[in-house]
């Protein structure tokens, strides 16, 4: 017998003429995500992707990796057998032995997409259920709330038996919806924003503003680690580390105290936009959520929005901190996000930041700076780091 993996696809099955393009993107992403798991074959049929492993294939690791591939709704590891009800019965007993010995109740479900198979779905369930009851006398049938559901799928390619599906990451294949540039700070929000945008099929690149010596190499390491956590979902991407101390000091010296934060954010957006344009990104992604801090009031967001012409994607805009933290924990970023290595740049935080900045005034203050020179200088001195997915 052999064990294979079936991947059920999400909303891309509803796509029309360009469905094929989404499927191809997804298959290419899967291939990359399984690169380090050993050889395998893959094919797609009936909106399901089949993974046929070779002998040296690392099954468990592959399943873990597949959980991070957007576009997959569920992952099923199942045994493959011949399309013959007696073979299916014998095979199920053997293949699900360990699972069935550890539970008390079960039910059978069947799906017959090969209509040439002589038994209808309910008949398959009755035959197999009866056989399992005979062979595992401790088991009882419970159709309402079983410990385990034994599935039989009779498909064009063969018959498959399994005991349940693992939830996939959902969403759409990364790369099927263009590329955007994430402003990655090192806190809790921005990695979640990146994750959520990538989930909708958007490829990422990221930009981090680095204020050495006001922050340290440890802070940079932390940001790289967060980027690598995101890369588990997106695959490899580029991180641009912008040396930001000089502009910060310039803003600090020339601009009014209470406007520092808003102006700093505008400049960050402008630099990110310049990098995004240079590298083919179609939008900027931030972790802002309305009202969270002074620079995220609607008035402040309006000002930062006006500083760029690209669309700004803010997937967390309506979320509470708690909801953001839940996702941060789910994607494994939280523990890294809360490491205390940032924030020694409190020098640049005004005591009383403006919560309702006016665009006119901010534009006036920005005239005190040579913004084009700042942007050029930052873009030219950027450090480019290739981010590989973090391995466990």
């Amino acid at each position, binding site marked *: 017998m052999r064990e294979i993996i079936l991947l059920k696809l999400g909303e891309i099955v509803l796509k029309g003429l360009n469905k094929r393009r989404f499927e191809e993107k997804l298959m290419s992403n899967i291939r990359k995500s399984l690169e380090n798991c050993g050889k395998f074959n893959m094919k797609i049929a009936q909106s399901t992707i089949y993974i046929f492993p070779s002998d040296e294939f690392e099954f468990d690791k592959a399943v873990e990796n597949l959980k991070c591939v957007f576009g997959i709704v569920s992952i099923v590891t199942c045994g493959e057998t011949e399309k013959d009800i007696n073979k299916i019965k014998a095979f199920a007993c053997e293949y699900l032995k360990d699972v069935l010995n550890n539970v008390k109740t079960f039910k059978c479900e069947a799906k017959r997409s090969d209509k040439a198979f002589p038994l209808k779905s309910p008949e398959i369930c009755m035959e197999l259920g009866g056989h399992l009851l005979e062979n595992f006398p401790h088991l009882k049938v419970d159709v309402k709330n079983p410990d385990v559901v034994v599935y039989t799928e009779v498909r064009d390619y063969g018959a498959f038996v399994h005991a349940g599906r693992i939830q996939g990451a959902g969403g759409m294949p990364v790369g099927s919806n263009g590329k955007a540039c994430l402003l990655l700070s090192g806190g809790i929000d921005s990695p979640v924003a990146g994750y959520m945008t990538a989930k909708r099929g958007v490829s990422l690149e990221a930009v981090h503003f680095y204020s*050495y*010596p*006001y*922050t*340290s190499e440890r802070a940079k390491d932390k940001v790289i680690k967060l980027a690598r956590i995101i890369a588990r979902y997106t695959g490899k991407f580029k991180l641009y580390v912008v040396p930001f101390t000089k502009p910060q*000091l310039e803003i*600090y*010296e020339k601009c009014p*105290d209470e406007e520092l934060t808003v102006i700093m954010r505008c400049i960050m957006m402008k630099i990110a936009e310049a990098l995004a344009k240079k590298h083919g990104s179609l939008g900027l992604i931030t972790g802002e959520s309305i009202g969270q801090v002074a620079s995220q009031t609607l008035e402040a967001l309006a000002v930062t929005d006006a500083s760029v012409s690209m669309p700004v994607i803010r997937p967390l805009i309506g979320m509470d901190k708690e909801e953001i933290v839940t996702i941060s924990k789910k994607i494994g970023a939280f523990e890294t996000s809360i490491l*205390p*290595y940032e*924030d*020694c740049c*409190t*020098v640049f935080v*005004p*005591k009383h930041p403006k919560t309702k900045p006016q665009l006119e005034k901010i534009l006036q203050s920005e005239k005190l700076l040579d913004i084009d020179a700042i942007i050029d200088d930052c873009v030219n001195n950027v450090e480019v780091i290739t981010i590989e997915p973090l391995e466990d």
Partner: protein
Amino acid sequence: MENIYFDNSATTKIYRAALKKYVEVSENLYENSSALHIGGINAEREIEKSRRIVARSFGASTDEIIFTSGGTEGDNMAILGVAYANSRKGKHIITSSIEHHAVLHTCQHLEKEGFEVTYIKPQKDGKIDPLDVEQAIRHDTILISVMSANNETGVFQPINEIKALCGDIILHTDAVQAYGKMNFSDINADLITVSAHKVHGPKGVGTLYVKKGTKITPVIFGGNQDGILHSGTMNTPAISSFAKAVEIFNANLEKNIVYLKSLRSYMIEKLNSIDDILINGYDAVNVVNVSFKGVRGEVLLHSLESEGIYVSTGSACNSKSTDISYVISSMGVPREFAEGTIRISFSEFNTKEEIDFTVEKIENILNLLRRFKRR
């Protein structure tokens, strides 16, 4: 130019001869020193030879020397071991508020178990007043634990005076920062913790000196490889390399102390030309703890790092937290100074030229940083 390493209170560079010893013993005496065969016996002989060298540096006999994994383990063994062994006599412990976390957190753990702990605050100069200790003594006091030299300021504490006042109460001293900076035959305490990596030895090894007759019970249990108090396979290469380091620094001890003190006073003299600074503590051998008004220690540290100069803010073990050091604040240093505190700690490998270069850089950096101080 090579990096300037001014963080010797955090750890030191291992002596080349000690490293060589480590490799040699790892290769040639890898057998388990508890084994019955001749391989094991030879490893044991090497350990006993090392024990004699370390014991001599304490002016102690070999059966008073226990090898540990370092300072934290030594402090835990001493404090917990004495507390548990003497709890019927009393449950009161005296320590200082400026101890290393290895002592403070162990005491806090004992408080949860029903012990009472008095924390003595230092005076403005960073020293514990022996009279404050005397006043804290109660009929049920079983242990006094005061460090020999503080890890952030380098200030030496009056251990012998405290010993003279504490009668038959057991006295432990965390001497991790004092080892190699004073003659240990002169310390009068019942238990002394030291660590090899602060004296150019390897990491992961240290000693707990336990004076004969001290009432103490083991806190980790196993094969009693190093007597009843310490179990675990003996770390032969580390112990042997540690002894090598002790041999080297002891040969030049007096001379080194004079040299380190001269570096310290040289640096303080140069720093004094800078405005708005405070030197925290006196009576230290190799540490200059200095506060600069209007900057943050961490920012200054990273600015120096970019010039290839390595210093520390507070002790390395807690500088990941951005709070003001509990040692500096308990000395009453004003907040606007305390925020800008760095620790410069020397070893015999440092030079006056390095100090010249560093002070010049500090002046330049301060000129920039103080322009941008928080409004």
